[in-house]
């Protein structure tokens, strides 16, 4: 959860978030990556990381991530007393384990339900529960055509995405310090919970990418409150604004009322998806239209970071 970094004073950290998913956050980050000079990139959407699809990273360092421990019942030692099932608050103990040394059926930990609290292992009267660290993801340092990138992959059905997000940000800050980068550009995750909070705490600014729908308007309010809760200056960009010009205007008015800076609008254009299919950012793919919009938004954001 901690946002404590060791970064040089002149490195600014910008986190791009969205509240609602699918508003075009990663497409904006890819364009900013192409436009920014001397930046380090971090993909903190570890649950569904996509930035690498556009940036084609060449991985130079790969590390295992362990976010916590997990319980495992050893059938040979289990006496089937049921204490673990009685104490587990996460409904993660099943009575369908293999035959044990002394009993015909043993208890078993459902690894998907287990939150790694260790209560079962601590209180097992037979000492039959192992409680050890597990690897639940990997993180990587890579080179891309737009600068170094730190990214990660959480294993399927794993916990602790917030801890992995903190790890990615910390490593990215170290890379930024080593390379003397002036910008740390972070692709955040949707929502307002654990991974989002882990990705924004201590950042210099967040850019909220939203869309002109009632859902976008509703979710913008919630994620703006989170940024405010953690005292992080926030900017807003309405993507695909021309899908509903009236709601786009309402979002910008609402943002201004909340004291958020409006960084600009990006039009709805198939070129954005076509660029993605060609593994490019839209500013690399077309000269004008949405690319022009992205450049305008980037200029406003860069100005605000100064």
């Amino acid at each position, binding site marked *: 959860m901690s946002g404590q970094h060791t970064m040089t004073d002149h490195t600014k950290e910008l986190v791009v978030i969205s509240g609602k*998913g699918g508003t075009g956050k990663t497409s904006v980050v890819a364009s900013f990556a192409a436009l920014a000079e001397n930046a380090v990139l971090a993909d903190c959407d570890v649950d569904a990381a996509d930035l690498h699809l556009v940036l084609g990273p060449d991985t130079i360092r790969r590390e295992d991530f362990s976010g916590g421990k997990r319980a495992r019942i050893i059938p040979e030692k289990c006496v089937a007393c049921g204490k673990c099932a009685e104490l587990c608050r996460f409904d993660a103990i099943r009575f369908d384990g293999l035959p044990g040394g002394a009993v015909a059926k043993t208890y078993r930990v459902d690894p998907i339900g287990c939150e790694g609290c260790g209560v079962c292992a601590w209180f097992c009267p037979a000492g039959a529960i192992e409680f050890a660290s597990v690897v639940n993801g990997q993180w990587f340092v890579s080179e891309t055509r737009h600068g170094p990138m730190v990214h990660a992959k959480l294993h399927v059905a794993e916990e602790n995405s917030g801890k992995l997000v903190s790890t990615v940000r910390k490593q990215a800050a170290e890379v930024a310090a080593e390379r003397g980068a002036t910008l740390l550009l972070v692709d955040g995750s949707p929502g307002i919970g654990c991974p989002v909070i882990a990705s924004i705490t201590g950042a210099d600014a967040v850019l909220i990418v939203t*869309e002109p729908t009632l859902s976008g308007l509703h979710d913008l309010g919630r994620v703006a409150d989170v940024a405010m809760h953690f005292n992080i200056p926030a900017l807003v960009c309405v993507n695909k604004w021309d899908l509903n010009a009236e709601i786009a205007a309402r979002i910008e008015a609402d943002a201004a009322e909340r004291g958020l800076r409006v960084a600009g609008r990006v039009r709805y254009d198939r070129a954005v998806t076509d660029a993605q299919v060609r593994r490019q950012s839209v500013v690399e793919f077309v000269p004008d239209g949405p690319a022009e919009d992205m450049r305008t938004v980037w200029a406003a954001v860069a100005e605000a970071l100064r």
Partner: protein
Amino acid sequence: MNIAVCSGKGGTGKTTVATNLAVTVSAAARSAGYLDCDVEEPNGALFLKPEVAETRPVEVSIPEVDQAKCTGCGQCGEICQYSAIVCVNEQVLVFPELCHGCAGCWLVCPAGAIREAKRPTGQLAIGAAGGVQWVQGLLNVGEVMSPPVIAAVKDAAPDVDVLIIDAPPGTSCPVIESVRDSDFVLLVTEPTPFGLNDLKLAVEMVRALALPFAVVINRADVGDGETTDYCAAEGIDVLAELPDDRRVAEAYSRGEIACEAIPDYRDIYAQLLERITQEATAAE
């Protein structure tokens, strides 16, 4: 029958599909329920416009320390895996927002100085939208953990013929809490590189949970053909391919349900529901 509607990637049309399915169930004269488990950003209500009958806080368990009884032995800090309770210089400190409510500290405390207390982290709302029974969870701003709020939504599920579960995006703990005991999972995707990458993660997740599932491709005429190829190669059924229809996008932007705003969609969703029902029954 419980149908969870998921998507690895956000914004692929999960809420659109979930709300339209709920309305379609109800239109077929079957009892329908809709659980909004996307508790970080619940949006189903913007479309269903339910009348809220009841709201109540969602509470989680946290420790409360009686400093007078505490001996400073430090066992609470030893058992806690989340640094939510720590003992420094024989002084116990609690960080409630980090607590998972596992009960370890109050079970382990030899002095009986810790008791279980409650703390609100979200709100539950229960109501109805026409024939659809609606339940929504809302995580309080600044809170980290959505799974307890999701669990509360599921505990409040109505007893209906078909229950539609609108899950959060992604593939980690909140999604798993949402889909855990469903009968069938519908993965909504879009045929773009991002959509496909996140679909693959979602497929890995439902396979790890051993749940029957199928795919709906939304905005099927954008992007590329790789999603269809992937589903064919993996033997995954694609139950519907919905077009990139500006009328749907605009109806969505105004908070309207496609089936209600654009009559063509009634048949499309009736067929989708029929295919889900067949697949879910075959999987039993």
